[in-house]
């Protein structure tokens, strides 16, 4: 590499961004490229983007680890100290967030900038990873019957994923709760996963709605636990999905403010 490297100079190093993101550099070359990364803003940005792409390949290999691994790791961390960045004292980040649910009560921080209802994920990978985490979580701890039902649903989900225009989007609210959607505009179908939302109390249910301009929200179904909801009949004019908490059995029209809402323009809707 040294002769070629000198010949090609910086361009030679730039072209190593993809092999680096795939961990396809040998030890010495990897170190040399990492030194270069510290000085090259453009390369660093490219590596970040390409690494996120590579992570998609990782997620598709997810497999439940042996239960004994969990026990060993959780036991070990009790006696394993954490490494702090130099000069930074240990501090507890409590993650305490305002208890309001947007739409029901305004955020109790008058002088701050308005908090958006919904923060889109920074990258496609983060969005997709979320959808995957939702789908993956559902598969764990199943009885045989549940597994059969899950497999039937999985076929429906596979149908959506197989559409040529299937796209993912996701977002989270201020409390870290998330919604993930894989949708195909041509098939008019979507798979929706929620995570972090506790079961509503008193037999109430979470109902999914399709929001369209100039039309009443249309019910797409009720969520059961963490099970992904497969929705069909999505029209191209749809602008967003919303989830509300409704009395047992659902409602013909939303009766409460949405607990979460997600725009569909990035997945091919809203024409």
């Amino acid at each position, binding site marked *: 590499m040294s002769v070629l490297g000198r010949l090609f100079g910086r361009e030679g190093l730039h*072209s190593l961004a*993809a092999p680096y993101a*795939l*961990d396809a550099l*040998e030890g010495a070359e990897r170190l040399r490229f990492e030194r270069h990364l510290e000085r090259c803003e453009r390369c660093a940005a490219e590596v970040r983007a390409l*690494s*996120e*792409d*590579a*992570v*998609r*390949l990782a*997620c*598709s*290999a*997810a*497999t*439940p*680890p*042996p239960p004994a*691994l969990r026990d060993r*790791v959780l036991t070990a*961390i009790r006696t394993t100290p*954490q490494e702090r*960045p130099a000069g930074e004292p240990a*501090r507890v*980040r*409590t*993650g305490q967030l305002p208890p309001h649910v947007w739409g029901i009560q305004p955020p109790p921080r008058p002088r701050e900038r308005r908090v958006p209802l919904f923060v*889109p994920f920074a*990258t*496609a*990978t*983060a*969005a*997709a*990873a979320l959808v*995957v985490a939702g789908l*993956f*979580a559902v*598969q764990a*701890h199943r009885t045989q019957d549940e*597994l059969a039902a*899950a497999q039937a649903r999985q076929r429906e*989900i*596979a149908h959506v*994923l*197989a559409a040529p225009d*299937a*796209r*993912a989007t*996701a977002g989270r609210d201020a409390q*870290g*709760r*998330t919604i993930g959607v894989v949708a195909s505009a041509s098939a008019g179908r979507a798979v929706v996963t929620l*995570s*972090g939302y506790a*079961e509503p109390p008193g037999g109430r249910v979470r109902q999914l709605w399709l929001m369209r301009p100039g039309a009443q929200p249309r019910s797409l179904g009720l969520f059961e636990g*963490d099970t992904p909801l497969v929705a069909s009949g999505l029209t191209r004019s749809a602008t967003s999905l919303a989830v509300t908490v409704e009395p047992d059995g659902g409602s013909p029209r939303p009766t409460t403010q949405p607990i979460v809402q997600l725009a569909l323009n*990035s997945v091919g809707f809203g024409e």
Partner: protein
Amino acid sequence: MRPRRGGTAVQADQLLLLVAGGDHRAFEELYGLVAGPVFGLVRRVLRDAAQAEEVAQEVLLELWRSAPKFDPDRGSALSWVLTLAHRRAVDRVRSARAAGEREQRDYLRSSATAFDQVAEEVEAGLEREWVRRCLDRLTTLQRQSVTLAYYEGYTYREVAERLSLPLGTVKTRMRDGLTRLRHCLGGVVA
């Protein structure tokens, strides 16, 4: 459907920030989110369940130890831990390959793998199918360049040798392959 314990699904990024403060329970929840992808990836590269378990354990402990150094501005928590897991797996498979152990292990692993693959197909079938669909849309050379490196742990020089291609071509195919994969997998634009 069994509900997940204690609101497990607070998002990984946020959990990792809690873990950085030494929160054991947050780590337990984070484990639930990342252990499957970490173990699956490492096993895919190493093709050996016992070694994969060992490496996954190292990675997950490292996740605990290094949590205070996590910088959310530089990428997602999942990306952070999977990058670490991949690096460890690749380093291990390369030294094993250098020692000539790999071929032997590949030969010996047959029955265990057959069983594992069934479970794997149920658990990760959805994302796998999606990624496979997108991989199918790459050109053959793009796909081979990306998967030989990422799933098999070959360096780009080794990939070039195996595919009888110039080094420059392999680098370009890797980059184009990943970029096309991103476009196909879609999602929120950065």
